[in-house]
């Protein structure tokens, strides 16, 4: 892809309608994302794994440059991240693989979910976890808007920690270079 095709296709100020139905839609997107985050049937590491799988599928540079602090605190690291793209043959556990198969199905083949995938998902995930995976993907995949209009550029080097506030708003923390394995991190 050329550098021209990575340039924003609309101006960022055009994505913040002041009022009316357009503004209501942006607010509803925010609210639905916040509602998705209220469930905790999935542990933070699995949540982060699904988020990054979505980022890979959609080519979201912004999402791929973030690491959720709650996940990092729970043991997510770049060794886990490196396995997401090849999860089927990885050392990730069976529940994680099942969740990623469900993620792939929702993104790639929602009309024809393989019965073997359904069986695997139902064998390793509770119904609450299945529901949470789907609503999480609804939230994470909203980044498709930004990718399609090339608004997902990353204004920092390396990775940035992130968290969500009580209203579901994104809170950015410290940035750090990409390395494998655990390493000391500055507080968010």
């Amino acid at each position, binding site marked *: 892809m050329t550098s*021209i*095709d990575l340039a924003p*296709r*609309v*101006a960022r100020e*055009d*994505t913040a*309608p002041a009022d009316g*139905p*357009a503004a*209501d*839609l*942006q*607010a*509803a*997107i925010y*609210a*639905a994302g*916040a*509602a*998705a985050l*209220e*469930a905790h049937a999935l542990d933070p590491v699995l949540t982060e794994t699904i988020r990054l799988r979505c980022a890979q599928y*959609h*080519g*979201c540079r912004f999402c791929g440059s973030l690491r959720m602090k709650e996940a990092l605190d729970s043991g997510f690291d770049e060794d886990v991240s490196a396995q997401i793209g090849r999860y089927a043959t990885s050392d990730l556990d069976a*529940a994680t693989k099942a969740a990623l198969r*469900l993620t792939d*199905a*929702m*993104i790639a083949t*929602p*009309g*024809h*979910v393989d019965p073997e995938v*359904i069986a695997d*998902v*139902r*064998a*390793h*995930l*509770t*119904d*609450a*976890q*299945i*529901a*949470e995976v*789907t*609503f999480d*993907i*609804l939230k994470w*995949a*909203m980044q*498709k*808007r930004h*990718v*399609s*209009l090339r608004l997902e550029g990353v204004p920092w080097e390396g990775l940035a920690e992130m968290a969500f506030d009580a209203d579901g708003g994104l809170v950015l923390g410290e940035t750090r270079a990409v390395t494998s394995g655990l390493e000391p991190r500055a507080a968010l």
Partner: protein
Amino acid sequence: MPLDLQERTRLEELHPGALAAADDLDAAAWAAVDPELLGLCLTRVTQMLDVRPPRVPVALDPAKVAALPEFDRSDRFSPLERAALAFTEQFVVSVDAMSDADVQPLVAELGASGTWTFVSALCTVELIARLDAVTHATLAPGEDSAA
């Protein structure tokens, strides 16, 4: 969302609040853009994904719906509809592979802020269609998973 009552009840039990928020989001999407345009695009989405036909809040021209798979060769569609449908198809297949040429006709028709709002609405209804399909496939009402 076109889930049946059992599916909706089950989802509400499993993830309280998320379904209601998604319903509000769906309503906001239809209110923010031309519902006929969005309806044509969502119908094309469901055709491409081979999922259940969408519930669209306005009546769509049956002849246009029938011509959707070949919209680029049909004279039934306006320039805006063609631009939106072309964008939609690529949005469904691979958003990362979209080129400036996929987007510019839509921006020319709707302007920058109009394009952002349309893309936000399209993304909303497309993702809800995907969620609907996967929920329908994976959640058996009243019968919890073995996990």
